[in-house]
């Protein structure tokens, strides 16, 4: 009796209801799959029966664990080498990202370099574009015939051969990812440099400290937390990146954990794959814990962001013009030239031959000839591509709509009940998918969806599972946006309506949403853009019917149909850049806001 009444009273408040529902759903969708994947590492899978002798599908086994971790040379090849490669690449990526991004941040905030707004806007472009953009461009330029195929633009133009180490593997992967994540460093470090109270430095100057002393004793310690954050962010991102190593590593069989995960899951040994996914998750969680620990210890630093007075800019003197022009050219190379190469590559018939006579529009508007790519029609007349494009749009729109809406509701409920354990729990649960590398999340859902679980049917190959996984992956961003905008609002605005008897849905639709519409909008747009360019999350789960543009790009590239891959890539980049532009216009938010 008392029980029932309490539950009834609890449910009468909408935010309680939202929290309870979200809690249950998120536990089912994020925590239970984890258990499922742990079980999968101990299970004999159908395709493994032949290999693990004397077992039946579904039996308990420690085979995967011992083979992956404890089996000498075998483990070395399956796991330890890819692990070392991953770590090496991630470290190199961080170094490049921090070095390049930090230098740029310093140049833009602390020197009198020219064209600051331009530099700032172009610098963050590689991050807005899909991560493989630069990788494909690299291939277009530096492909070499050593691994088969035709030489790239560089060799064609200069006649110089490109060595393998430069074209494929560790070096290009690190450089490409470093450039891709450099905007992290630029934004985080630039933010601190920009907001850091110049008085702190001026005070030291008055004490007759030298510039060098100031840099070493004051400026660097202040930006250290930002550098650490960048490091952890770039490290975990590049650790879970799939597209770049897949494009630049596979030609020379250079494996990292994610590509290895993909290979094993697609191949005959899913048990290995699940185990690697689990290890990836553990590393991801570890890094996040480290990040939180670092941030909590340094809080006092990062909050010193008083009103900055006019900072005395470093005069570059004679170097000013050369540096300004040089950096502008460099950034154009990184951000714009790739797009040109995609266009060029998509128009040439015989790869590697850049003679004008070799240009043709057949890969765009051709009807498909038997001698070209198995009679595949050009992408503007290709039913496959259209279905992929339609799927991409549909998927992104549905995911964005669901994620954004759930994010608003979650933010609302979490802020309204902020000190309650349930709000904390839901907050943690919505954040949790952030810790799981996309590929591993895909693996989890793969493991869940091939067979029915209780009331949940086997969703593998359906569109629903792509939606589900997209919503889960982007929920952290959307709920963060929801929480932030609710925190800005203050409870009284809603209570003023509550006390008049305005029902809940009307309070949301007529008061809360209209007031915070721009900041809620980013909770819709961010998932939309991310979904549009997502590859590793979906690659394990798509089927021919649910193919999206990104996965098609990957497949065409695997088949070696370069022209199609480049054309599709151009399509994706176009859609993403347009969406990003629309987002800036609509919400007034831009990634490099306030730094340039």
């Amino acid at each position, binding site marked *: 009796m008392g029980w029932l009444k309490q539950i009834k009273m609890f449910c009468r408040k909408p935010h309680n209801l939202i929290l309870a529902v979200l809690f249950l759903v998120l536990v089912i969708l994020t925590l239970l799959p984890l258990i499922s994947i742990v079980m999968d590492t101990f299970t004999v899978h159908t395709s493994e029966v032949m290999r693990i002798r004397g077992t039946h599908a579904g039996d308990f086994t420690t085979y995967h664990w011992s083979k992956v971790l404890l089996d000498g040379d075998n483990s070395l090849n399956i796991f330890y080498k890819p692990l070392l490669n991953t770590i090496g690449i991630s470290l190199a990526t961080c170094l490049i990202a921090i070095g390049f991004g930090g230098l740029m941040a310093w140049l833009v905030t602390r020197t009198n370099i020219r064209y600051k707004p331009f530099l700032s806007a172009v610098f963050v472009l590689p991050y807005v574009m899909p991560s493989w953009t630069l990788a494909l461009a690299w291939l277009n330029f530096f492909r070499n015939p050593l691994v088969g195929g035709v030489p790239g633009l560089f060799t064609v133009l200069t006649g110089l051969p490109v060595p393998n180490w430069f074209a494929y593997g560790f070096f290009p992967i690190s450089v490409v990812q470093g450039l891709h994540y450099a905007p992290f460093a630029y934004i985080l470090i630039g933010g601190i440099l920009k907001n850091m109270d110049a008085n702190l430095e001026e005070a030291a100057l008055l004490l007759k400290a030298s510039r060098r002393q100031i840099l070493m004793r004051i400026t660097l310690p202040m930006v250290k937390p930002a550098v650490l954050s960048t490091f952890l962010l770039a490290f975990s991102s590049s650790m879970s990146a799939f597209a770049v190593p897949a494009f630049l590593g596979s030609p020379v069989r250079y494996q990292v954990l994610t590509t290895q995960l993909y290979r094993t899951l697609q191949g005959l040994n899913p048990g290995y794959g699940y185990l690697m996914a689990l290890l990836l998750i553990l590393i991801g969680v570890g890094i996040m814990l480290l990040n939180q620990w670092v941030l909590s210890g340094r809080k006092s630093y990062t909050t010193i962001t008083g009103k900055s007075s006019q900072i005395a800019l470093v005069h570059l003197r004679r170097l000013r013009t050369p540096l300004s022009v040089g950096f502008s050219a460099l950034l154009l190379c990184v951000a714009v030239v790739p797009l040109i190469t995609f266009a060029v590559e998509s128009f040439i018939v015989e790869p590697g031959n850049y003679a004008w006579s070799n240009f043709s529009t057949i890969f765009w508007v051709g009807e498909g000839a038997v001698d070209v790519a198995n009679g595949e029609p050009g992408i503007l007349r290709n039913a496959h591509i259209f279905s992929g494009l339609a799927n991409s749009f549909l998927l992104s729109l549905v995911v964005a709509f669901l994620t954004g809406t759930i994010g608003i509701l979650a933010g609302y409920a979490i802020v309204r009940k902020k000190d309650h354990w349930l709000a904390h729990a839901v907050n943690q649960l919505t954040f949790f998918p952030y810790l799981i590398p996309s590929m591993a999340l895909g693996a989890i859902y793969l493991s869940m969806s091939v067979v029915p679980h209780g009331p949940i049917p086997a969703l593998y190959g359906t569109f629903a599972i792509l939606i589900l996984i997209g919503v889960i992956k982007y929920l952290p961003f959307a709920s963060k946006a929801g929480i932030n905008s609710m925190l800005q609002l203050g409870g*009284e605005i809603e209570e003023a309506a509550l006390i008049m008897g*305005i029902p809940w849905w009307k309070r949301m639709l007529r008061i809360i949403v209209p*007031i915070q519409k721009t900041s809620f909008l980013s909770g819709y747009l961010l998932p939309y853009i991310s979904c549009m360019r997502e590859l590793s999350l979906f690659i394990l789960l798509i089927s021919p019917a649910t193919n999206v543009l990104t996965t098609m790009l990957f497949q065409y590239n695997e088949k070696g149909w370069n022209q199609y891959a480049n054309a599709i890539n151009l399509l994706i980049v176009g859609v993403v850049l347009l969406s990003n532009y629309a987002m800036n216009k609509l919400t007034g938010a831009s990634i490099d806001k306030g730094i340039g």
Partner: protein
Amino acid sequence: MPEIILRQVTKKFQKSIAVENLDLTIDNRGFITLLGPSGCGKTTTLRMIAGLESPTTGEISIGGRVVFSSEQGIDLPPDQRDVGFLFQNYALWPHMTVYQNITFGLENMKWDKKRMKARADELMAMLRIADYGERYPAELSGGQQQRVAIARTLATGPKTLFMDEPLSNLDAKLRMEMRTELKRLHRETDSTFVYVTHDQLEAMTLSTKICLLREGKLQQYAPPLEVYNHPVNVFAADFIGSPNINLLTAVAGAGSAQAVPLVLNNGQTLSFQMTGGELPSEEQMLHIGIRPENVVLAGTGGLPAQIVATLPSGMETVVRLDMGGVPLTAVVFGTIDFAVGETVPVGFKTAGHILFAAENGRYVAGGAVAV
């Protein structure tokens, strides 16, 4: 009739107790102020009555209907309590015009357009914001915003109106005007007002009863003048009145109700003639509460005191004195300018003084101090 009764209401937050065992009866049509220093639980109390916050334990009834009871598991939502709430920060809806702000509640009650407009016009005229109907809140001054908030709250005609420090953001002149306005509103709308403030002057001038809180506990609940003249403890005496009441520490000697000898810190002895309360025991440590206006300067046969400072404000003058090491404040009507260091004789009016026990601050006796 909406008589509001709180029984043993307690509100705990994680660590702290915001309100503790509060018993309070708010009469119908009263104008009650909740008064107390910052953090004493005023807002929390108000929000609990309005239903915006659930008490931890206790019972609240409005107009004979139980709206909250921890024992019976009742917790009516705010809209079923027939109350209006004026928020400290106004909480106007920034995306609606003044007119829309005022009529949103009526729209929700499905009033027809004409009636709604009539009601809004009536309110806007009453609050003198008729010209601003089409403006957005951000285009109004603080005082205008506040009047819009009042109009919005009154629109649906709640029987009880809660106001949380509504005047705290206004300048002194506007505040005076709004006080008058609120008093007029109270008369005209015939409803019960519960008003939160930490400004004792506002409480004194507006309310029919003051509810004085301290650290979540009720100190005194009485009409303003009674709190002023008969404070139940040192806190109440000290909180109400400006300048603050003089509190002189003294030790009681042996005597009768007619003449209790009180020995001050500086060795001087005063005599206290009781008119109420109980006789202090011998050697009891006391505080003598003397309102500044009850200190008489320039009397004859008074104790000598030196002038420390004179603070004339036009209508009256506050004089700070040093009476042989004991600081003392006096208020004199009109403008008087004493020279600093000058010695004047100090006497006391023959009624309105209070003795408090030093150990717990409680009221001991009332009466007159004589030199």
